[in-house]
């Protein structure tokens, strides 16, 4: 980026510094140079105008200026499944959705269970990516759930956390060992909580809707028993646990209790778990087929409560793009997953519009907390930080049209929805995306 | 005793002293000092622990403490004088001779003791005796040396 950027008159929200007000933010040489909140003297205003002269100026009046969002759960599919998504297309989609940092899960082909694949992902992103990518390494070799993968060397290669996501770690002893071993390298273990025996054959939430559709169900308990197990193991070992994609009321309750007892657990949910219920599957809509499945209204209520009281720390996307052909088939055979990078922020803003979260709290859930959990210097507009900034027009209404997605994955249950709030400019790695 | 040893051996050629732990060690050192005074010659002095060669190991409740054995020269062809404080049953001397044999092949083994209290159980006799002190079997003789921080002296202790 040649030169500097001055974003003026936007409503800056940076919970890492307790900033929540209209002001200007100056970017110099790819780093945040400083923030000035308005309300100063005429003299100060004059100084600002002079400085503005030699930079590109953006007038953000009426819009919000946030730290670039951090998605700690996404599937970028490369290496191995490039027909669904690539690092290039996935990071483009991220930036379009206001995300400047993305963590990619290891269920690629080959699985990211060693430093060589980690290095490949980072190299690819360096060459073709539009935002920062932080790989999450596999917990077990091949994600088979048997032998631990070389966490130490993967950490050194650039992995920020470990997960077998896509699959649970079924063997309790292996999970215990993973939590113990992770302490040496001070990384969180991210758990996809699913008891495979209980969920076997299920394709949507177990309940009335499934009965009416004649589809096999996945009970809430399939998730809850594993949340309980993992939380107990975290307590036993003192390791850091992060629960991925929380979808049920029971899970929220268990996590809340665990935090009260001082267990080192954090949790994330995804927009589809606080916006839509199992009813959206009606008509055998495969775009609503996701694992964990869409649940009931009471689960939505519990998750919102969990977001409000801090039980749930993060809103992540679990961006799971699939090729159109794969989703265009009988419900039983369609793969699980929702393409979420480009709709997440707007759906998150829905919580602000609805009074569930304040704007600073939303920024915490989508930027600051994920960065803290992963030990990244992101999600903040502190002076000296990388200039990862997103300007959001929270009033702009737009209709979700997956064909217009930058992501290769067009599989979203929000097709046709009118959402309020859209990123109009994302600044990342010295580039401005509009 | 020092004079006798020199006389019997017609000088100090090839002579060496080995004191039996513990009582014989101080005595051997004293003898060597005397011999140095008389002849002006330093003859080698060593120490020998016989615990490992005792014939009563299986019978005792307490294990004898194994002390230092230090014979830093080759005994073969040497005239070796074993030195002990008290000669009693003779079993210690038998053990000492077995031990010496494992170190080499002395040309002669002689025995010097400070006190002979009688009651031999084996055909062992001393070549040099400081004093004969008849005792009864129940009594115990203790020899003290100033080198151990006590005054030189011999004490007869009855065990009643």
């Amino acid at each position, binding site marked *: 980026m040649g030169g500097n950027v001055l974003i003026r008159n936007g409503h800056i929200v940076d919970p890492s510094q307790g900033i929540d007000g209209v002001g200007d933010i100056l970017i110099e040489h790819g780093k945040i140079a400083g923030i000035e909140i308005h309300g100063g003297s005429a003299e100060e205003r004059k100084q600002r105008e002079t400085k503005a002269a030699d930079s590109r100026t953006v007038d953000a009046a009426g819009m919000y200026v946030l730290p670039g969002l951090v998605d700690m759960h996404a599937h970028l599919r490369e290496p191995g499944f490039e027909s669904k998504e690539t690092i290039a297309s996935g990071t483009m989609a991220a930036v379009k959705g206001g995300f400047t940092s993305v963590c990619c899960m290891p269920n690629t082909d080959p699985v990211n269970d060693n430093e060589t694949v980690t290095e490949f992902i980072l190299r690819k992103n360096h060459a073709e990516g539009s935002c920062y990518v932080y790989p999450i390494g596999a917990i077990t070799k091949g994600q088979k759930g048997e032998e631990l993968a070389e*966490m130490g060397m993967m950490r050194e290669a650039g992995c920020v956390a470990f997960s077998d996501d896509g699959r649970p770690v079924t063997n309790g*002893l292996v999970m215990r*060992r993973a939590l113990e*071993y992770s302490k040496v390298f001070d990384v969180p273990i991210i758990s996809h909580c699913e008891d495979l025996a209980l969920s076997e054959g299920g394709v949507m939430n177990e309940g009335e809707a499934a009965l009416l559709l004649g589809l096999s169900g996945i009970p809430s308990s399939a998730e809850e028993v594993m949340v309980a197990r993992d939380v107990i193991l975290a307590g036993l070992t003192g390791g850091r646990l992060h629960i991925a994609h929380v979808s049920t009321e029971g899970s929220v309750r268990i996590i809340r209790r665990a935090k009260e007892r001082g267990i080192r657990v954090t949790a994330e949910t995804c927009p589809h778990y606080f916006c839509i219920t199992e009813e959206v599957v009606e008509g055998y809509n495969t775009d609503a087929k996701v694992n964990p499945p869409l649940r009931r209204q009471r689960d939505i209520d519990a998750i919102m409560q969990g977001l409000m009281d801090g039980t749930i720390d993060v809103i992540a996307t679990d961006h799971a793009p699939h090729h159109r052909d794969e989703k265009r088939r009988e419900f039983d055979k369609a793969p699980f997953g929702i393409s979420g990078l480009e709709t997440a922020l707007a759906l998150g803003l829905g919580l602000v519009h609805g009074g569930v979260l304040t704007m600073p709290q939303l920024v915490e859930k989508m930027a600051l907390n994920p960065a803290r959990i992963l030990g990244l210097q992101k999600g903040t507009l502190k002076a000296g930080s990388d200039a990862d900034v997103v300007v959001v027009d929270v009033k702009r209404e737009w209709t979700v049209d997956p064909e217009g997605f930058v992501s290769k994955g067009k599989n979203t249950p929000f097709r046709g929805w009118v959402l309020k709030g859209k990123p109009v400019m994302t600044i990342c790695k010295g580039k401005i995306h509009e | 005793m020092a004079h006798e040893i020199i006389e019997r051996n017609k000088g100090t050629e090839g002579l060496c002293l080995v004191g039996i732990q513990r009582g014989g060690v101080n005595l051997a050192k004293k003898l060597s000092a005397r011999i140095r005074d008389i002849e002006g010659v330093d003859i080698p002095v060593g120490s020998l622990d016989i*615990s490992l060669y005792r014939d009563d*190991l*299986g019978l005792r*409740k307490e294990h004898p403490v*194994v002390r230092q054995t230090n014979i830093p020269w080759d005994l073969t062809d040497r005239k070796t004088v074993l030195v002990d404080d008290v000669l009693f049953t003779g079993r210690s001397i038998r053990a000492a001779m077995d031990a010496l044999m494992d170190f080499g092949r002395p040309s002669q083994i002689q025995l010097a003791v400070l006190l002979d209290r009688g009651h031999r159980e084996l055909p062992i006799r001393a070549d040099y005796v400081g004093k004969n002190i008849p005792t009864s079997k129940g009594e115990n003789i203790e020899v003290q040396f100033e080198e151990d921080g006590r005054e030189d002296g011999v004490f007869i202790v009855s065990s009643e």
Partner: protein
Amino acid sequence: MRKDLVGIREVSREDIDSILETASSFKDVLKRDIKKVPTLRGKTAVNLFFEPSTRTKTSFELAEKRLSTDVLNFSVPTSSVVKGESLYDTVKTIEAYGVDFIVIRHSSSGVPHFIARNVSASVINAGDGINEHPTQALLDAFTIKEKKGGLDGLTIAVVGDVFHSRVAKSGLYLLSKYGARIRFIGPPALIPETNGYDVEVFHNMDAGLRDADVIMMLRIQMERQGRGFFPSTQEYFRYWGLNMKRLGLAKKDALVMHPGPMNRGIEISSDVADSSQSVILDQVTNGIAVRMAVMYLLNRGDGHGR
């Protein structure tokens, strides 16, 4: 002293001192031309090894022979145990042969205690399960004392699979009686709860080795790899292997010890194993002297005539 040596945990510091002092004298015997003393002549020792072992078995056998003991070796594959004989019957039969010492190594913890309760011979534990290996702890202590003059106040870093190591356990029990400062270094799954013993635990080896006086390396058993204890030998060596660079973090004259056999390149690099600070071969020599001392001191009469 007692009849048996089944564990160091219950042995007093005085008795340990006595063993180590006696071992010193026996070490002198081993330097002589005639490395034999008639001390245990006429006594019989049985080496009852249910687990394979070359070093320990050979060490015991040599110790026994140097004391003029008659030696019997009981090897499991060719024994009656294969025919289904119970452990109890096996040891009672051995006792009936009129044996004075039973040296036992077994994969189940507590077997030496079981045998000691049931026979009148003196039982010496040569390693039971993941419980204890008392003579190894004694020879390690002897080696340290010989080189450093004593045990009190030394900082001793034990590195590796402490959890499954009977060598480490016995070592911990012994060194705790002497006021040594003990550190355990290794991946979390291989370091046990220390249950009231005063031990500093390190998962970062560089931090744990700083200013150590003694480094005791433990053998990594390959079966533990992959079963969650550590992902691969490369990763193990990278974070917990002793190389020259790490050795430099300890005191300049720190001792490097290993109970053997070593996995060069997995827990210890070749250059460290062969360096001047390594006392691994001294441990082997001292092992014989220490075992001789143990047998000498356990040998007891009943006070009556023979």
